[in-house]
């Protein structure tokens, strides 16, 4: 019976995420037009999108372990463990995004792209990283705790849902950063 529940949860989440991915792909396609305005920006879009999903799903995986071990109580209260986890993923969001911004700049220079500016790439990477980091971190915590309460395994729910939603949130935040720049 438990095996059956495991399969049912896994399959429904996987199919849901693939279907969202099909739809979001076409939405993002439209926004991406604006990205070619800033040289070198397209270079850092895939790694930034991946980064968001990775930080989110690592957080989700840690929360899943914590909830199963009983180290985190399944309630929305700011405990010390939860604070540390939030601080960790926000720090990682900013530092790793900045690193990717610099990587993209160096790569752009190597590829002889015209008019690559390290400041614009850094600003866009860190701004979008910090903002989507806050959103995704909150969402991950909500998802992990709510799914655990509803008897769904957070190890199954958080990773896929966060990576899929992270794609959309990150592209929207990069878009916002480009508009502000």
């Amino acid at each position, binding site marked *: 019976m438990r095996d059956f529940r495991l399969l049912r949860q896994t399959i429904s989440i996987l199919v849901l995420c693939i279907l969202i991915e099909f739809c979001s*792909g076409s939405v993002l396609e439209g926004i991406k037009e604006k990205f070619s305005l800033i040289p070198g920006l397209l270079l850092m879009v895939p790694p930034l999108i991946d980064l968001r999903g990775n930080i989110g799903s690592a957080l989700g*995986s840690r929360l899943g*372990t914590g909830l199963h071990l009983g180290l985190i109580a399944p309630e929305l209260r700011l405990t010390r463990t939860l604070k540390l986890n939030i601080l*960790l993923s926000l720090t990682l969001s900013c530092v*790793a995004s900045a690193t990717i911004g610099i*990587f993209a700049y160096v790569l752009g220079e190597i590829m002889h792209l015209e008019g690559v500016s390290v400041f614009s790439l850094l600003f866009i990477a860190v701004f979008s990283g910090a903002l989507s980091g806050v959103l995704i971190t909150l969402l991950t915590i909500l998802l992990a705790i709510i799914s655990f309460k509803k008897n769904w395994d957070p190890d199954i729910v958080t990773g*896929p849902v966060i990576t899929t939603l992270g794609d959309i949130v990150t592209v929207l935040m990069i878009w916002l950063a480009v508009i502000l720049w």
Partner: protein
Amino acid sequence: MVVQAKFSRVILESYLVLIISAILSLLAGFLLQENLDRILRLSMLVALVPPINNLGGNLGCMVGARVSTALHLGSISGFRSKQARKEFFSGLVSGLSSSVLVGSALFALGFAGFPARIVWIFLLASVMQTLLAVFIALWLALMSFRKGLDPDNIVSPIITSVCDVGGVTSLFVAARLLGF
């Protein structure tokens, strides 16, 4: 878990893994760019790249997260343990049945005019992708735990990047095998 390990250590461990995975995903982008003309010839293949990468990455994340929890709980010991086998096979079954579901949905809807051959390519490629994702996720979780690292921080970043490379590759191999 962050509670038990030192904060600075977790930061360093995660940072390194994230950067490795960012470099891998840059590589996947290059792979795609390099083969662009071949992909364009089979223009329908492009539409299959995001869902197949998504499938592999997500499946790998789930297996990784579940095995990490089991490792921390002490209910999985090694590759040959009963629990590890159960995770492996349930991962395979869910990956395969999800891709069959998505494949038949594509087939039924005629999504964007998908011809039947594209659906077969998708199915064959997702068999390869599923095997790759489940196997590597399980291996990574067990290995990193054995080396004293926290698999919660290691598996999901690495597996999503590996599956980005694996998805594109298995689509090519499947297309080649089916005579495109």
